[in-house]
């Protein structure tokens, strides 16, 4: 195995690796990429506060004497109708959004990519079955499918993640299948099979690494959609169950109180938008940097 690997890798990998590294870095040199990184760092810091229990208050602690306080000293973002500290809840809500987004996108990316790659690489019956599964999942508007799945399962953050993962699985299957179709007939893939490597190890050694760019872009963008989907589910009452803080649920609670306590609507809303814009900016600049078509023009 090692001999064959070395033989295959020697000619083009060193050049390819530096070129690839430069392409990755280019994504973080554009203004959009820099802003994306800054926004995501901000989101991460705020979310990590709650993960390490460093929020100024317990996000679930009710203190009726302090209810509906305007932002200011003591409560940076003010308090809600139960006297809970909004900043602490935004922090915990962001952590919840990120956790669900990461788990669901990771699951969707792994399962979807496996399906797409198998279909594209082996073709035939496998491809047909994968095609039907993706078509069926695509036949439901995404929020509706997530809602129907989340509503039938027992509600907790994990089932919400699973529901979102199932919704985004077909996207990854489709995104992965396309490049595999072209890669499987690429000269170096054919050469690898010609020198006796099994189709399976060729797949791992030569086909999958070349799809990294596409997958990274798709993952970044999917994270932002997953955050939006979780927030929408929670807003509709089928996401993260209370008393856990979720940004969508906080916006829902703020609806009726928006005239007396606009900060209840403002801060979770801004947190949500910052997280989504950050991921979208990152995804867009990664796409621009890694896509050979647009990359060469820059």
């Amino acid at each position, binding site marked *: 195995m090692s001999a064959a690997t070395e033989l295959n890798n020697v000619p083009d990998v060193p050049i390819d690796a530096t070129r690839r590294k430069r392409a990755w870095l280019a994504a973080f040199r554009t203004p959009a990429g820099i802003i994306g990184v800054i926004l995501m760092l901000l989101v991460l810091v705020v979310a990590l506060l709650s993960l390490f229990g460093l929020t100024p208050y317990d996000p679930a602690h009710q203190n009726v004497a302090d209810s509906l306080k305007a932002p200011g000293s003591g409560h940076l973002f003010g308090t809600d109708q139960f006297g809970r500290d909004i900043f602490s809840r935004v922090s915990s809500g962001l952590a919840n959004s990120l956790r669900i987004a990461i788990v669901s996108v990771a699951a969707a990316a792994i399962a979807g990519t496996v399906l797409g790659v198998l279909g594209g690489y082996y073709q035939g019956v496998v491809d047909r079955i994968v*095609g*039907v*599964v993706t*078509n*069926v*999942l695509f*036949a*439901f*508007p*995404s*929020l*509706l499918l997530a*809602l*129907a*799945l989340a*509503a*039938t*399962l*027992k509600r907790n953050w994990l089932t919400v993640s699973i529901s979102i993962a199932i919704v985004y699985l077909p996207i990854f299957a489709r995104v992965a299948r396309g490049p595999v179709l072209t890669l499987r007939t690429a000269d170096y893939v054919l050469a690898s099979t010609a020198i006796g490597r099994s189709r399976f190890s060729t797949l791992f050694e030569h086909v999958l690494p070349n799809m990294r760019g596409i997958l990274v872009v798709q993952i970044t963008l999917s994270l*932002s959609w997953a955050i*939006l989907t979780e*927030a*929408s589910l929670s*807003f*509709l*009452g*089928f996401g993260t169950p209370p008393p856990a803080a979720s940004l*969508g649920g906080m*916006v829902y609670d*703020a*609806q009726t109180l*928006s*005239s007396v306590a606009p900060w209840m*609507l403002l801060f979770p*809303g801004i947190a*949500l*938008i910052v997280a*989504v*814009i950050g991921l*979208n*900016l990152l995804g*867009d600049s990664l796409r621009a940097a890694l896509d050979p078509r647009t990359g060469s023009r820059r």
Partner: protein
Amino acid sequence: MMYLRHPITRRVGEAVLTLVGVSVLTFVLLRVVPGNQITASYGTAAGELSPEQVRSLEAYYGLDKSLPVQYFDWLRGVLTGNLGVSTTSHVSVAQLTGQALPNTIELAVLSILVGLLLGVPLGVLAASRPGKSRDNLTQLSSLLALSVPSFLLATVLASWLANNFGWYPNGEGFRTLVQDPGLNLQQMILPVLVLGISIAPPVLQTTRTAILAIRAEDYVRTARAKGVPERRLQTRHILRNALIPVVTMTGLQFGFLLGGALVAEQIFAIPGIGRQVLLGLTQKEYAVVQSTVLIIATMFVLVNLLTDLVYRVVDPKARVR
């Protein structure tokens, strides 16, 4: 057997296969739900039923049969128009859908119009000077529109208008277009605006990309070389061809709106088909949810099929492929 290989036959066959899968998934999904029709219709009283009563009820609802048999029974019902009955209101799902669907379609059509009116001109604007400030500015606004969740935009808009101007037409009971066109259109303004803004970015991007790609085509250069006036070149040669992918995008978005307008319908109290699902879920009316989800997915598949077929007609290149 040649006709089996025809692209259109294959596309239709694929749609039929998808619909079968959709019906299986919908059926399975609602069987996973804890509790069955008996607990759904009797609530807590179901616990007081004797084993015999439970057995006869199971026979009545067909729950004693095997799952495949239950599936085909259900499918036969659906295909003959029996979509089930709401247990709380005793109205058939077909009737409920008949009332809800026109509202959703109205909402979808108006939102698509707003999305196109925003997206296409902005896409043309962005493509007119790629990489320059007007392009960057439109791209930025498109990114912003994509990043603001529609439920947030809807909530902010609605509470701002209600708090500062005391204008909130959706607070009154919903009126259909037939009952009170004036009030109906007022009630449609906010949801249509919110949905239109969420549709505009993909339309904008598609228009921009298509224009840029077509501008580089040989036939555009040829047309310019033989002296076609610039205005005619931009409209007849470039924009007209660039709109072909926009048609596909519009079809896709329309399908989404038929079932995806959940949030807008919920916030603005539009009794459409998305709200029917939500209401069914909160009231645990699983027959209503099951049939409505099936109807939405079927419409989605059919709209996509139609879009594909229309695409073949508008774009001669697709016919050859």
